[in-house]
């Protein structure tokens, strides 16, 4: 049996980062091949290389597809060869109908005029194939995420797919929708469509996959056949790396509880009936760095943002106490008043006014602190900005520099300065080192340690488990909107964190089948 796809020695370098290093992947015709790995291991990058998002020549190594070398210049090229990728974020146009979406860019047309009769007929056939009973004229926005996912697959089938790549297809789905999707995958397999699935959920993988390839730090670790699959081995392969001394020394000295969250429930702002956070409870002590681990979509950011002035979600219930007293965090201003600060994971979109200078960004959350009766004292404002520039070692010619011109690490320091100027008791840092180079990461870690030493409480959300293990005194593990475990620094290890998540997924699947 010759392979349908063979990727040999694939490497991909971004400025300053090597994302892929010598990855090999062989996919046999008609199989479902699963790819596992931690966040940032390089799975998505690999699939972008395969589908032509990164054109031929921008990566190292070679790809043999269907017996011939594959050199895609763009996605159109790979689609012409029957390689279709369905991304985690669905790429449908909500206000267009199912039929219009299915043939978007691939219209059933002659000389630019669409043949709607034929398009509707083909739509009907495709919908039947994916087991969806909807009129071709239904607008996509009327469908749930699960059905939208099926539309994406139908769209792929419309393009005569031979190799279908699904990037975390069930991440946003509820249990029964996930089951339907997995059934459809098996059906497509029976029809001869080769598939690659990227997933964290081992129960799903073991259900549909014929073989598994584990990727870690941009390299292939192992490929195993169905009968070799065991959770222990996958976890070991996924995380098994030594932790270097990448974290500054610190002697933890936790005091009394600063913030306590109890029975926190949040519902999705748009999708009715979808609960995003389910009864979460956690606490932070004085001088403590607490981590929240979890995979993408586990609800960590949603938890943080809903706590911070209800900036996310609806119908929020639960209690927050600060320093033993009930705290009102129902608006951002009140949350700040109560001593809470939140450093967002997306500093450019949510954290900074990019076209304004450093000084204006630093004081933005506490303008009353540099004004009297509503009139700004610009001298004091500049002094404040200068103070933080020195304390944080923000590398810039001056505080009048626009933040858009700063590097990622320095931008992050500006955001941290902004929140420190509100003098918070508890800081929630959401992916504080994302997109920051290694040296700046160390600086951010040092700043975090200093803040803890000052007696502030720090909640650190991160997708990089080594970072959590290196920095935190305690780690909460989140999955599917729930806190599924709490580990002390001594107990915590990547294996244990993954085990908690996987165990929880297994229970969920069990419940799903029982129901």
């Amino acid at each position, binding site marked *: 049996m010759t392979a349908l796809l063979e990727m040999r020695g694939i490497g991909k370098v971004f400025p300053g980062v090597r994302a892929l290093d010598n990855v090999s992947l062989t996919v046999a015709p008609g199989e479902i091949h699963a790819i596992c790995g931690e966040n940032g291991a390089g799975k998505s990058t690999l699939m972008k290389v395969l589908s032509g998002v990164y054109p031929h020549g921008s990566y190292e190594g070679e790809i043999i597809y269907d017996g011939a070398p594959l050199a895609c210049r763009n996605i159109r090229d790979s689609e012409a060869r029957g390689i279709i990728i369905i991304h985690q974020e669905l790429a449908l146009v909500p206000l267009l109908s199912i039929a219009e979406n299915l043939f978007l860019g691939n219209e059933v047309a002659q000389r630019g005029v669409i043949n709607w009769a034929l398009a509707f007929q083909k739509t009907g056939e495709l919908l039947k194939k994916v087991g969806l009973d909807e009129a071709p004229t239904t607008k996509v926005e009327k469908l749930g995420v699960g059905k939208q996912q099926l539309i994406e697959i139908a769209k792929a089938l419309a393009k005569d797919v031979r190799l279908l790549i699904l990037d975390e297809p069930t991440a946003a789905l509820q249990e029964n929708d996930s089951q339907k999707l997995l059934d459809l995958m098996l059906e497509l397999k029976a029809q001869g469509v080769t598939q690659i699935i990227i997933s964290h959920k081992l129960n799903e993988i073991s259900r549909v996959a014929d073989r598994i390839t584990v990727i870690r730090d941009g390299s292939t670790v192992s490929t195993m056949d169905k009968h070799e699959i065991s959770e222990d081995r996958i976890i070991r392969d996924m995380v098994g790396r030594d932790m270097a001394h990448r974290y500054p020394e610190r002697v933890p000295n936790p005091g009394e509880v600063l913030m306590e969250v109890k029975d926190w429930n949040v519902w999705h702002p748009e999708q009715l009936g979808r609960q995003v956070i389910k009864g979460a409870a956690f606490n932070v002590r004085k001088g403590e760095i607490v981590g929240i681990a979890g995979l993408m979509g586990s609800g960590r950011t949603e938890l943080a943002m809903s706590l911070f002035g209800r900036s996310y979600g609806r119908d929020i219930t639960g209690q927050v106490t600060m320093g033993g007293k009930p705290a009102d965090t129902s608006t*951002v201003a009140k949350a700040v008043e109560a001593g809470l600060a939140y450093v967002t994971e997306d500093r450019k979109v949510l954290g900074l006014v*990019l076209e304004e200078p450093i000084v204006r960004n630093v004081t*933005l959350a506490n303008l009353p602190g540099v004004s009297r009766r509503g009139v700004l004292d610009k001298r004091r404002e500049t002094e404040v900005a200068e103070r933080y520039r020195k304390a944080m070692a923000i590398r810039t010619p001056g505080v*009048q520099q626009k933040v858009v011109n700063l590097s990622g690490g320095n931008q992050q320091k500006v955001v941290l300065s902004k929140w420190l100027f509100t003098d918070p008791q508890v800081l929630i840092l959401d992916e504080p080192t994302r997109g920051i180079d290694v040296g700046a990461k160390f600086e951010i870690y040092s700043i975090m340690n200093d803040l803890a030493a000052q007696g502030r409480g720090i909640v650190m959300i991160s997708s990089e488990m080594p970072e959590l293990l290196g920095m935190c005194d305690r780690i909460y593990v989140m999955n599917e909107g729930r806190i599924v475990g709490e580990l002390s620094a001594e107990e915590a290890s990547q294996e244990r964190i993954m085990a908690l998540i996987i165990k929880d997924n297994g229970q969920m699947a069990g419940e799903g089948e029982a129901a």
Partner: protein
Amino acid sequence: MAEQKGLGAHLGGHLRENGMLVALVAIVVLFSVLLQLQPQPVSFLKAQNITNIFLQNGHVIILALGMLLVIVAGHIDLSVGSVAAFTGAVAAWLTVNVGLPFYIVIPLTLVVGGLIGAAQGYWVAFWRIPSFIVTLAGMMVFRGATMWMLGGQNIGPFPKGFQALSNGFIPDLTGIGRPHGLTLIVIAIAIGLQLWLGLRARARDAEFGITPEPSGLFWARNLIIAAATAFVGWQLASFRGLPNVMVVLAVLTALYAFFTENTVTGRRIYALGGNEKAAKLSGIRTDRLVFLCFVNMGVLAALAGMIVTARLNSATPKAGTGFELDAIASVFIGGASMTGGSGKIVGVVIGALIMGVMNMGMSILGIGSDYQMMIKGLVLLVAVIFDVYNKNK
């Protein structure tokens, strides 16, 4: 060498601000020359023309001040022309039909303007209906309301008190007569204030470690402004003195410049326009600020409406047509960004003056309104292209 590099870098960084001023001066010079070349030479910069530029364009400057805030906040207000017409009609009705004195009519009309702004701002701010649509609706509604209120007829004329709002001049308390003593004193104070504030800002820049403007450039600019102010002041004084409208404009300009640059609320409006999500996550109540911008716009539209009504000495159903376009054009010529978050009051005033000087100059030259519209449209386009080009460079 260092000095030269400093000058070049500074001009590059402040091209827009200085460029605006240079453009205004260039346009004034251009018209002066063109009018001297006429078969019957006319002096462009005579007192009457200078007075008229402010009398005839005061409403545009006032509207542009409010429009800047709306645009900085990331919105637009298309209704200001209709609102000005409507509030003008309200003021006329209160004055002529009800017979109220001007000191009651003026505040009452401002309140009506504020309420109209609130009614529109409510939908924009709290319901997040696009401002383009809300104010387009307002444009139609208040044009219709004006016609309904006036019943297809004009209301006027007005008693002296109300007319003085637009046609009056400050009294000469010194009793010199001609030249107008108080005007000279006010102008002298204004020049002194301008220099003092400039020097203070410069000292502060140095203290904050901001590379100061090269001193040659600083003095050159300030002396040109001082000379221009002195010239205008002398001309006005030798005519009828300082018009009331100009006093109102000067006070409002200073007030709004201070508000935008030195107050917490002003700063927050810029942050909101620059990145609404970040502003919101910094504890700023962005919806309330947007609401306030529209209320403010309504009040200023009412003021502009009254000034225009007083000038024409009658409220007419067609008043205020196209005011919104003049105001928006002034804001963009003045260097505000289309996406919100930037723009300066001084720039906007200069932008409005450029429009006003062009209107007057072209009218005296006898250029038809067809060509005038085309030329103004192209000036707007060129100014914005200049901005975008500078930004991309």
